[in-house]
């Protein structure tokens, strides 16, 4: 641990007994370390004293009880407003939506022409093992030449 951090930890009582003894010994021998300790202690004291005190208008227990009461009242109100809907009615909207989208997709697919998948140009299209596929869009013809008559 960094020596400055050790001094801060020493001030905050966050060290073990052995570690605290070591830091105290170091501060006895090292004037800079001792000066740092005094500065940190002064800052800590100033912060503690400068913190504004907030005074409650009523006793602490009564103030806390009021907070708990307000939370309980809000939860009860939310529970009253929650309407119990049967599961099948909750499912109607999403199911109807999915079904409608599917129906539209199928109808659109019906009107699409198969020729949209064809290559437009004339010429060699694919060459698979044992066959060459050739498409002539102008002639409306697809040719599959089977090479060697074996698949």
């Amino acid at each position, binding site marked *: 641990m960094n020596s400055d951090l050790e001094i801060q930890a020493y001030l905050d009582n966050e060290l073990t007994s052995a570690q605290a003894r070591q830091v105290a010994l170091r501060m006895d021998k090292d004037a800079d370390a001792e000066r740092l300790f005094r500065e940190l202690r002064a800052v800590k004291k100033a912060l503690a004293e400068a913190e504004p005190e907030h005074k409650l208008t009523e006793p602490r227990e009564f103030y806390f009880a009021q907070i708990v009461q307000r939370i309980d009242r809000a939860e009860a109100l939310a529970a009253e407003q929650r309407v119990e809907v049967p599961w099948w009615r909750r499912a*109607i909207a999403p199911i109807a939506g999915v079904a*409608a989208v599917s129906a539209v997709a*199928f*109808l659109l697919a019906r009107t*699409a*022409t*198969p020729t949209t998948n064809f290559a437009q140009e004339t010429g060699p299209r694919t060459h698979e093992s044992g066959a060459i596929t050739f498409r002539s869009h102008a002639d409306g013809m697809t*040719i599959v030449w089977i090479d060697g008559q074996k*698949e």
Partner: protein
Amino acid sequence: MKPFQPLAWLVLSLMLCGIGAAESFGAELNLKAQLIWGSEEPLKDTKCPVVEGALAEKLKKVFKWKHYYEVKKADVAAPADKPKRHTMSDKCQIELQSFGKADVEVKIFGEGKHLRTVRQPIPPGEMLVLAGDDKNDTAWFVVLTNTSK
């Protein structure tokens, strides 16, 4: 909102989904199938009619053979539920199955052996040609034309 309205939309949407699903999962496709023989030289001892017209022009445009003869012509069906086999000649058979929207799977058999499986959409008015070479520098062609409008 009345409770009936969302239910009505749900039922209507499900019905439309069902119709769409039935459509996309296939309807039987009617095709015209032709088994054609191509040759460099004109064949003198054949009873097969010469292929003429637009089909001949298309074949000549693509292939080197100058003369085409129709061995067999038939109206065939590609069912949706299971494949159906059609005999084009002693040595040639095809098995067809439709997968909806003019998508057809064709299995071609030569001399009893499975040569190739091809799956291709055949739009109305268009054709799929399966072809291969034969002895004496000739070739065979199976032409499948979608005759639906």
